[in-house]
Each structure stands twice: as C-alpha cells, then as structure tokens.
C-alpha cells in the first residue's frame, strides 16, 4: 500500500539533497563572474579610453547612489512580502527627508537618521490603518500618500522651516555635522594606515590600478549611514529566511488564510512588516537629507519609484534588490561622469549580451539567445560608430535596467497574495 503513495507525482523533482554544496557552487560561480567582469572593465577602459570606468570616484559614487535605492526597495520588500503593494514608497521617503531635516537641525546627524525613520513611519501608519484596518485599495492609498506627502512637506516647511536660520520653504536649516566616514585599515587608509588602494590606483599599472580604483572606491571614506543602509540587506535576508517572524511574514504575503487558520496573526504580521518597511523607506530619505546636510524639497527625485522598480526587478528577494540597486547606482554614477565612461559601459553591456546570447544558442536555447545577441550587436555598433547625444547619459540607469530586463531569462514571481485584501473576520468560501 505504501508503495503506491510514491507515484503521486512522478514528474515532481527528486528530493534535492540539501547541503552546503549548492551555496559553495554559487560562490564559485559568483567569483567566476566577478573575475570576468573585472577583466571586462579593464578591457573596456582601454578600448573606450575611459579611465572613469575603473576610477575610485566612480565606484564610490556608485556605492553612495546605490544605498538610498537599495534601502527604499528593501522597505518596499517588507510590505510587499507581507502582501501589501506599496506604491507609496516615494511619499514615505519624502516624509523621511522632511523629518530628518527637522530632527537633524535640532539634534544632529544621528537624529536625522532617526527622524527619517519617523517620517516614513508616519505615512506607514496611515497606510497601515487604511489598507490593513479598513481594507482600502492599496494602489489608491499608495498614490494618495505620494501626493499628500509632497504637498504636506511643502506646506509644513512653510510653517516650520521658512524664515528660520537658513531655512526656506524648500529647505530645512542645515544639519550640523555628519556621520563618520570609515575606510578599511591598510586597504584604503583607515585609522591612519597607509592607503594601499590609492597607491595602486595612482600607479597606472594595468590591472593593478583598476583593482585599486574599484576596491578603493568601495572601501574608502564610506559613510556610516551607507554602511548601515547596506547592512540592512543581509539583515533583512536573515529575518526573512531564518526567523520565526520571517516565516509568518512570507506566509502573510503568500497565503494569509493559511497563516490565520493556524492561529497566526495576519494583521499583526502585516502591520509590523508595513511599519518596518515604511521606516526603512524613511531611512532612505534620511540618508539623502544627510548627504545634502538638509531637507531639500523634491530631493527624492523619484527614487521611491525606482526603488519600487528595483524591488520588482529583484523578484522580491533581498539579493535581487541588492543586484538591481547596484546596477542602477553604478549606471547612474557612470551617467554622471564623462561621456567616454558611458561609452565604456555600452561596450561592457554589448560584450556581456553577445556572450550571453552565444552561450544560449550554444546550449540549444536558440530563441532565448536572439534577444541578447541582437541587443548586444546593436550596442556594439552604437559604441563603434554612433556619436551619442550627451543627454542620453542621464538616462543610463533606466536604459541599462530595461536592457537587462529584456535579456533576462527569469520570470517574476510576486508574492501570491500581493494586493489581496484580508478582512478582519475570516469568512472563507
């Protein structure tokens, strides 16, 4: 009798042995790709005559531009993993910049970060009450929060900031001081040690100087706020996959009824997730305010939306969010640099796409290979022969993200209950 049970699903994959091998394999693959990427960057630098592509300034910029997007996307991940679509990230971020400006003005940089969280929480709480408690349409509430946050920020700035101490309707008084910048000892001159990477970068020796530039950019003078922001990604991954709350959190976004039937508190879980997420979105705003040492009106510049896009791009995974936001931050940094740096990026993309396309064709997935191959060839032709309008560089992050989406092979899998209302009283059927 028991033998027949086995046949329930012959097509189901065999039980995968769970050991460390897959992750070690993954590490090895990551290393391989990393090395290939490095090689490509070095080649691109010479081909495009663009020292900027491996310069520490570019990589430092990339890091700093990545942080706010990564953090706001992680904020979105909290609420969306719990099943609540968060279109209001931009508004929460705006709230974060505003309160960060206020707190930072009163109490300094640490308070600014805290204020960012508070600012995000204000709108998170509003969204929680409207979406979880009252069950209103999450898209509507999200859009409304964006509009309301922008309007309120200005209205309140007029009352609170205008006319005091360097403040205007569009700016808070200055946040005095900033969080310390850290460097890695012996690598990038932390703690007064010699700055190895800078020496390497300045040496001009091929490979050595590029590695020096890249590593130096990523490790030199990194703001504590940026470090905290980046650490939020692994921390979130830990909470998501390895804690009891994480399991309930995922269940609330996948099948809330199942959680509820087992006695889990769906609403409480969603509240916590949404509030934490809004706090993080606000944190991202606080980070921006710290960079400019003040709240500046509209300084979020649509990063909340980019964060939302990054979240989807990253397939609602912390690792994906990291990947997406770094891609975006890096292209943004490149776009702000000199035109030839942007061309070097084109070259890198062209090569990656062509190789990817050829690999796919070689492995027999001819159809899947066409898109990257074609795109790669187009990019290569553009790189070689077409003079580009300088304005194009400002769109670099968007174009790169779009191109990656076009060639990516994976399909997105949003949390199954994303956007589903879950009434207070359970009445199934």
């Amino acid at each position, binding site marked *: *009798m028991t033998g027949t049970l086995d046949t329930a699903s012959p097509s189901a994959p065999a039980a995968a042995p769970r050991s460390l091998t897959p992750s070690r394999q993954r590490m090895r693959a990551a290393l391989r790709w990393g090395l290939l990427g490095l090689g490509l960057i070095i080649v691109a630098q010479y081909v495009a005559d663009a020292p900027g592509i491996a310069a520490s300034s570019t990589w430092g910029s990339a890091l700093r531009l990545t942080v706010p997007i990564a953090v706001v996307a992680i904020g979105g991940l909290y609420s969306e993993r719990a099943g609540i679509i968060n279109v209001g990230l931009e508004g929460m971020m705006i709230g974060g910049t505003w309160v960060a400006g206020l707190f930072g003005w009163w109490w300094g940089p640490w308070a600014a970060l805290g204020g960012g969280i508070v600012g995000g929480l204000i709108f998170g709480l509003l969204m929680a009450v409207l979406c979880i408690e009252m069950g209103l349409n999450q898209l509507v509430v999200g859009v409304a929060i964006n509009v309301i946050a922008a309007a309120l920020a200005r209205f309140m700035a007029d009352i609170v900031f205008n006319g005091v101490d360097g403040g205007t309707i569009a700016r808070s008084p200055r946040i005095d001081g900033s969080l310390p910048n850290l460097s890695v000892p012996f690598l990038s001159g932390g703690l007064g040690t010699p700055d190895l990477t800078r020496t390497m970068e300045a040496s001009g020796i091929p490979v050595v100087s590029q590695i020096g530039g890249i590593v130096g950019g990523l490790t030199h003078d990194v703001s504590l706020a940026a470090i905290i922001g980046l650490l939020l990604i692994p921390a979130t991954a830990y909470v998501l996959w390895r804690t009891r709350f994480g399991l309930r959190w995922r269940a609330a976004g996948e099948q809330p009824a199942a959680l509820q039937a087992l006695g889990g508190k769906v609403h409480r879980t969603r509240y916590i997730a949404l509030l934490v997420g809004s706090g993080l979105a606000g944190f991202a705003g606080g980070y921006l305010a710290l960079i400019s040492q003040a709240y500046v009106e509209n300084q979020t510049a649509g990063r909340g939306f980019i964060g939302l896009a990054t979240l989807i791009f990253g397939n609602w995974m912390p690792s994906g969010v990291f990947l997406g936001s770094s891609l975006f931050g890096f292209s943004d940094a490149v776009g702000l640099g000199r035109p030839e740096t942007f061309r070097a990026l084109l070259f890198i993309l062209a090569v990656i796409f062509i190789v990817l396309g050829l690999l796919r064709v070689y492995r027999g997935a001819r159809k899947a290979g066409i898109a990257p191959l074609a795109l790669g060839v187009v990019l290569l032709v553009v790189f070689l022969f077409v003079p580009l309008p300088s304005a194009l560089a400002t769109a670099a992050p968007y174009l790169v993200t779009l191109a990656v989406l076009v060639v990516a092979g994976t399909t997105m899998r949003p949390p199954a209950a994303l956007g589903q209302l879950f009434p207070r009283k359970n009445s199934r059927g």
Partner: protein
Amino acid sequence: MEQDVLVRLTGIVKRFGAFVANDRIDLTVKAGTVHAIVGENGAGKSTLMKILAGEEHPDEGTIEIAGTPRSFRSPRDAQQAGIGIVHQHFLLADALRVWENVVLADEPGSAFRLDSKAARSRVASLAEQNDFLVDVNAVVRDLGVGGRQRVEILKVLYRDARIIILDEPTAVLVPSEAQSLFAAMRRFTEAGAAVIFISHKLDEVLDFADEITVIRAGAVVGRTTPADSSASDLAALMVKVAMPTVAPREVPVGDDVVLEAKGVTVGEAGEVPALDDVSLAVHSGEIVGIAGVEGNGQSELLMALLGRARHTGTIAMGGRDISALPTETRRARGMAYIPEDRHRDGVVLSMALRENAALGYHARPPVKRGPWFSRSGAAGVARSIISRFDVRGGDVSTPASALSGGNQQKFIVGRELGSDPRVLIAAHPTRGVDIGAQSAVWSELTAARDKGLGTLLVSADLDELLALSDRLLVFYRGRIVAELDPRAVDAQELGEYMTGVRTRTGGVA
C-alpha cells in the same frame, strides 16, 4: 466498548442572515472511532465542521470537548483543545516548503532564530511515523493533490490533534491514495484520536466509518452504523433519490472519429516529457475514459487538446487538423470542456452566473450580437442552465462564489453540455458533487452521448469511469499503458494498471 466521548455538540445553530445553515445539530464522537458525516451539497456539513474548528461561531448551542464545555474564539483556541481540520479546499502557501507550511505559527526556535533543523526533522519523523512519503523540503507548488493533502494532515498532526476533521478528503484522491489515507486514519484512531470525515462516496463511508451521521438541510436526519445500513438507505435519507446508475446503452457508438490525437507529446526540451507520444481517438457517441493516478499526464493531455499547452504531434477534430488553432477556435468548432479545478478554470468567482454562463461561449449568439455583449442573451443562457440542471442557491445575478461547490459544478456541466458540443473533454465532472447531483450529471452525460457526443472522460473516481466509459485508457508516466474494456475489468485490476504493477497495450477495441 467503553469509549470516551471526545466531542459533544448540542443544539448547534448557525444562521447566515436569514438562512439557517445548521439547525439544532447534535453530534457525539467517541475516541478511537471514525465518524462519517454525509449529506447533500449545501446541507451544512462544512459549516458544522468550521464551528467545531473555531472558524465560525455558532449562534446557539454548546461544544464540549472531552467533557469540558468550550467556547472557541479563534482557530487557535480549537487547536489548543486538540482539534485539527483539513479543509475541502487546501490552505497551503504554494511558495513555501512543506516543513514551513507545517510548522507555520508554531515554529521551534527563539525569537531571533527559527530552528529549521529541528522543524525539518520533526516534520520528517511525523511523516515517517505515518507512512507519509513526502519530501519535507519540497516546495508545495510542486506537489500533487495527494501530497498536498498529506501536508495538510501533517499540519494537524504537528499540533497534536486528538480530533481530526477531514472535509471531503477523498474527493480529489485516486483509490490507492484514498486507501492509504484510510489506513492512516485507522492508525490515528488506534492511537486514541477521533476522526470526523465528510464524504459523498457512500461506499467508502460504509467501509471505513464506525458511525455515520446524515445531515439534510442543516438538520440531523439520521444516525446509523455501517452494519445497520446500506448505501441506498443512506442515499434515501440524504436526498430521497436512488443511487446513481447508468442504464445500458441503446444507441451504438458511431463510426466517425470526432477527436483524434496522434503522437502528442508535451514537455520542456531536455526534460522527461509529461505526456509522451500519446495517440487516441474518440468516436461520436462514445465515452472514452482515462484512468490514471494524478500527475501521469492527464492534465497535460487535457491542456494539449484544449490548445493551452504547447505540444508536438497532431490533434484533429472531425478529421480536420486543429493542432495550430487557438483555444477560442477549437471551442467555436464545438469543443466543450469541464475543467479539473472549477475554482481556477471553470468559473470566475466574482462574476454573476449570467457572465459565467457566457464564459467560453462569448464569441457566438445569443451572447454575442455583432460586437456587443448581450446581457439578456447571457442571462437567458444562465437561466436555462439553472433550471435544466437544477442549480440551487441563486439566480442569474448571484456571483458564482455564493454557490456551494456542488452547485458550481452543476452549473459548469450545464453550461458545457448546453451548447450542443461535438466533443466534450470532461475532467472529474462529479468531483465534490452529492449523489443526487451526480445522478443528474451522469444522465446528462449519457443522454448527450446517445445524441452523438464524443466524450473524453478523465476521472479519479473509478466507479464513475467504469460506469460511464465505453473504453478505458490507462495512463502511466505520460503514456497509455493499457486499453481496457470497462465491462471486463474491476477496480482492483484497474488500480494495478494505474500504478504500473501491470502493463499491457491492446486489449478490447
């Protein structure tokens, strides 16, 4: 036999608005017994069970568990009292792993760390103790129905339930799976638990239950034991109709092939195909039954025939190749389809019956008038389905979600047969349907057959297959492994073919 009374419900009343779903129900379940509850669709069985499981609150009446009166404010309360329920529709998070679904909300570990090792080993050992072959690390999405059900039961066992409620557990299982479920149920009762199970399959109720309670229109109309009653007694108590039977056929099978598949294969390149080089033919006026354990290629065959799955090989209707045609055209040419999962494929739950009646028939009159959608036309269709197939629980403007499962099924069958199709692809047409409705569906199928409809019937219910089919094809691992004459084979033998114990092709034409 001196047995403890584990559950005692007295005078349970549950109203939904003015509608009384449970009307002063008394129920007593003893430890170590299997207690079956039977009744027609909408009789109030599930509602009663939800009350016992703390998911609904009774308007009147008392619940006593092991002698102590209880009042459950939440499912959690009921779980703590030792009650576990496996729902008619599973409640599993598809994207989570088996062990995650099981331990959810009751995880081992501390606030800062989920002890996944302990959780996994505990779930695995529970599964082992009960002879459940499930991979605790598998993602639930990849499991078949039987596997999912085992996960649901594991959830109950994990919480040390002494009272286990199974709402129509066998409706979706093939016989062998059902057998092992019953074996597991026995083990639970031997360990001192009580099992309450709901079923529309009276023979299994008679075989496995110790006590039977019959409910009709929300009230208990009979209490009996298998020893004291027969299937027809139960049926009579339930709905006052006879057991469904199929009259011997009078019209012979036609000569023309209405549906033909040649060398149809479905599967991703580089993987073992889910459906492997299958050829079959359905004649007019013929019902061809497909038997097989779920997951052996039947779903893929249905999807390929319907035009929803990419496949190689050819499919022809009435001699014309339709392989390249989209679903829409296939349906327009007279292909009807009763889907496997009515909630997913059969109806749009949030739409009214009027709109649901148009589903699949939206491209032809009376629903389509020029480019316009005729609401009155659709309403007319819906009304005729409701009256002809005795669909109860609403009118044309009632949303499909308001109907009980059985009535939804009747509505779908009615819609698909009502359009005078040439070919019917029917999957589990009576799944979850009470025997009254089952009779109705069967007679509609045979009547359509006699008028020349060619039917491909996939069912997990072997009695249904044996009763209705003119020929039986057995699927195993994506292939047809046997072609049998239903009159010359019994359920036992059929089961052996289905599980790959016996293999033979050819057989009776």
